[in-house]
């Protein structure tokens, strides 16, 4: 039998309290999505799936979901190509500004989105890109490229440098080496980066906020709904988003684990 230990108990209690703080609000949203009432108050009198029904009828919201998905898919695809190519260039070659560049590519992820958003808003029209979904896609792709680049580059850094040499030693041209040895070994990082990119794109507000014209993305649509006043539909859509995020995370953890095992 273990002795009761006040210090251990305190740590455990604090940990639990923090965990509760993190999850409590999300739990509330999920629970209240089944509230039949229009007002979110305590206690819940009737449970129903009513708001999920309303949700399915909400054309604007569904359209915004479709728009978000398309932006996410397109942005991720472009980011994968450009980002992986860039990571490969940085992995294969040494240039003087490399260290500097390594830090620069982090900026679009770390700088406040509102800054990037407004910078793009101020400049895109000069390029002939009007405020539209095109602008949003470009905006998303910009930080997604940096995300893919950093993730894939990090994987490259952990990659055994002798693998590619071994392939060359056994007669592979650089191109063959890439397809037969490099790519299979960074595959998990690419999949992980795609999932993360897509999720981030789906969730992005600050940049989108300034570049969007009429067609809202899902989070912007929700934001608009919130500005107009609280509608219980938001509980329902939030619950769905929560579940989708959960699935995306589980997938990424699964791939992430595989990745660590390889080393």
């Amino acid at each position: 039998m273990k002795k009761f230990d006040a210090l251990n108990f305190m740590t455990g209690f604090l940990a639990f309290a923090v965990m509760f703080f993190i999850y409590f609000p999300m739990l509330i949203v999920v629970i209240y999505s089944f509230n039949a009432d229009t007002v979110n108050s305590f206690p819940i009198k009737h449970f129903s799936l009513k708001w999920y029904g309303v949700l399915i009828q909400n054309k604007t919201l569904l359209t915004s979901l479709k728009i978000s998905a398309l932006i996410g898919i397109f942005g991720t695809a472009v980011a994968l190509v450009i980002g992986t190519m860039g990571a490969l260039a940085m992995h294969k070659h040494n240039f003087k500004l490399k260290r500097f560049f390594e830090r620069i590519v982090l900026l679009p992820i770390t700088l406040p989105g509102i800054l990037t958003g407004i910078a793009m808003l101020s400049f895109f029209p000069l390029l002939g890109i009007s405020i539209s979904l095109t602008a949003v896609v470009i905006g998303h792709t910009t930080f997604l490229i940096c995300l893919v680049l950093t993730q894939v580059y990090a994987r490259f850094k952990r990659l055994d440098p002798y693998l590619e040499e071994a392939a060359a030693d056994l007669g592979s041209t650089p191109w063959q080496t890439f397809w037969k040895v490099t790519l299979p070994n960074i595959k998990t990082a690419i999949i992980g980066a795609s999932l993360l990119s897509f999720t981030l794109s789906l969730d992005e507000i600050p940049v989108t906020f300034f570049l969007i014209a009429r067609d809202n993305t899902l989070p912007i649509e929700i934001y608009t709904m919130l500005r107009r006043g609280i509608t219980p539909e938001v509980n329902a859509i939030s619950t769905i988003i929560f579940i989708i995020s959960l699935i995306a995370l589980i997938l990424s953890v699964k791939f992430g684990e595989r990745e660590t095992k390889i080393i």
Partner: protein
Amino acid sequence: MFLKLKPSFYLLFLPLALWMLLFLVLPYTRVFIQSFYTIDDFGVLQPALSFDSYKRFFTKELYYFTLFKTFGLSAVVTAIALIVSIPLAYYIAFKATKNKTLLYTLIILPLWVSYIVRAYAWKIILGEEGILNSFLQFIGFIDSPISALLYSDLAVVIGMVHIYTPFVLMPIYTSFEQIPTSLVEASKDLGANRFITFFKVVLPLSLPGIITGGTFAFVLSLGDFLAPNLLGGSNTLFISNIFQNMFGTSNDKPLGSAIGIVLLVVVLFVLDMSSRAEKRYSSLNSDRT
């Protein structure tokens, strides 16, 4: 310097470089240039080299006061997020034995859940007709709802702490994990109790993680304009809200750009300080380069 490199490098690197130049560097440059412009009576931009916008920003109380307030509230958010994160990270890293992966997954899950959903949750909890008020009324703790819960600095801070805590938790947990058990054991072997071990061994060794986490929280809070919008209403202005306004209703792009540049400089400064501090305090060998 680039000239010596092989053609394959350019082929791979060019799309990236072009994209970043066109869609990132030039837009920021534009903001920088624009901050020296002026506007005429109709709100139309006039190219100029004027420091007027910066002057206005640093002389009008509302502006610089808001900047300081943003610093203050961001610092509060950072401090609370750190205080809240350390015990949980510690517990998962050192105390939890069975469900470590599950627990870790649980703390990073919120990062994957929509920002807007998390901000929204606090709206329905703290609202005048919200869940907290109706719960307190239900148990008879209060008679009439407290209206000051939502649309206050407090609501913004609570919301931000909630939103940014996972960003703080992750690096701290990682740095706890990297501490070799043997060091903790050595400390105890040398006669330090758990308190001393924590403050003299664990905490100093995890300082880089704590700095990273703190920087995340601080920088993200500095630039947030949505949480203040949703949870602070018109009562709580962050610098980003004024910034946003200048490009919207106030239509003063030079002033807005100047604010943007000030914010940019502040953020870059914080990031640079933090990466220096991180290097300085990292005593464990890691593959961080």
